[in-house]
């Protein structure tokens, strides 16, 4: 994000992006709930080539015991990338980036889950990035909140998320890996769509105050669309469940 690319044209003469999208256009998104057998809830998301599984276990016994909270559930969140999910093979073990993202995802999820309903228990959320092509934390939390819903964990709202970037001076919705690498800014945003409130917000890169406000508005519009896809995925899942039962 530090050097503006001299070679790669991030916005062409017609205002199109490297993958042909318009600035405010999302990548193709596929969302599915209930994709894994053994977790209590799960989801799969594809945003362009970004591919992520999320799974939820719990509420279950807290282990180790001393982490237990008397008045609510402990929410545990792990954001993790497969070694082959990125261009250069990621070594095994958690990187500092994965540790930080686990924290911001956990904090966002804590905002919506009714943890008080399950004191002395633990809810585990595992986000596994199997391919990373930009926007993994936002796709990851979108999948994670769906997996929580699939697990029947009560929440005040779903969380939907996307990242707004700035490339060649233009704000663009749902930035991909190349735009992130050669662009000027990457701002992941997660919101509770019904209340239109931010639950996760980060920025890497430079924006003016005005750009930042516009970028938040742009994110908010994209998030509403992603939320619709989540709802559809849940409906599909529930109808399947209904048929099955």
């Amino acid at each position: 994000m530090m050097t503006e690319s001299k070679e790669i044209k991030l916005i062409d003469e017609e205002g199109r992006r490297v993958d042909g999208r318009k600035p405010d256009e999302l990548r193709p998104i596929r969302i599915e709930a209930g994709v894994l057998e053994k977790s209590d809830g799960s989801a799969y998301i594809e945003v362009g080539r970004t591919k992520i599984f999320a799974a939820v276990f719990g509420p279950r016994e807290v282990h180790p015991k001393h982490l237990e909270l008397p008045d609510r559930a402990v929410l545990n969140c792990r954001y993790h990338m497969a070694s082959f999910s990125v261009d250069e093979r990621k070594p095994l073990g958690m990187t500092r980036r994965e540790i930080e993202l686990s924290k911001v995802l956990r904090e966002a999820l804590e905002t919506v889950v009714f943890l008080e309903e399950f004191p002395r228990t633990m809810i585990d959320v595992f986000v596994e990035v199997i391919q990373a092509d930009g926007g993994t934390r936002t796709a990851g939390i979108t999948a994670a909140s769906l997996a929580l819903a699939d697990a029947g964990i009560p929440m005040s709202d779903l969380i939907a998320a996307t990242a707004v970037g700035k490339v060649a001076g233009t704000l663009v919705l749902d930035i991909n890996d190349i735009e992130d690498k050669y662009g000027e800014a990457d701002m992941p945003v997660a919101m509770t769509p019904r209340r239109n409130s931010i639950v996760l917000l980060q920025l890497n890169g430079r924006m003016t105050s005005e750009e930042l406000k516009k970028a938040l508005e742009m994110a908010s519009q994209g998030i509403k669309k992603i939320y619709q896809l989540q709802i559809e995925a849940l409906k599909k899942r529930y109808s399947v469940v209904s048929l099955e039962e």
Partner: protein
Amino acid sequence: MSLSTKSPRMSPIKIMQNRIYELLKQGKRIDGRAPHEIRPVSISTSVIEKADGSAMVSMGGTKILTGIKVETGTPYSDRPNEGVFTVNAELLPLASASFEPGPPDERAVELARIVDRCIRESRAIDLEKLVITEGERVYMLYIDIYVLDYDGNYFDPAVLSAVAALATCKIPRYEVRNGKLERVEGESMKTPIRTIPVSVMIGVIQDRLLVDPSPMEERALDTSVILGYDSDSNIVSIQKNAPGLLSLNIMEQIIELGSKKAEELRSILVEAVGLG
């Protein structure tokens, strides 16, 4: 350090064991399968574009994703004219309530080493064809296996996914030009495969065998063995992977059963990856 785990000897296990054994004597299993019946297998390859090779394999409810990244590096000093491969496996915590986050535990290490052994001892990869400059620069294949959903027997689908990923891997070509290693843009080569190893997990309850156990069966088994076979029906690896006695007589039955099931799995694999 290896520690006893909770499951094997608890009394509910004994009851389950009796039930499974009674069914086996009638040629049946709890999930409706025949004793020597493997669950449905599905294999998708090249599912991860950023990996040089990849395969998602499901075997019943067990789901495994293997990805391969190819790098270049120096060969082992005692094998200067061979490329290098390493196998890692992770039992992801999202796959089962019994898996914990953190560095690979003994089960994950065992899985990685069993897959490694199947590939290495069958000499499946012609490593001599993975040399760029003898003694100096060779291809290194990192075969990383992730268990995404654990519904029993992760061994056989892990071998299937690793071999499927290998067989469909596109190794980016490198050349030494003017003394410098360079990527030959746009060019890649297939993994030089000599044989198609597969593994077969076989469980024992008293004098009966079953294949591809479910988690409930795994807990109830007297013991179990994983056997690797090459395309010529040679046995290339064995791992007795649970406590329990195994008579020589039962072991002979296991060898024969394994050989048949290996052919079955190999034909599924060959069809999926278009080898043969």
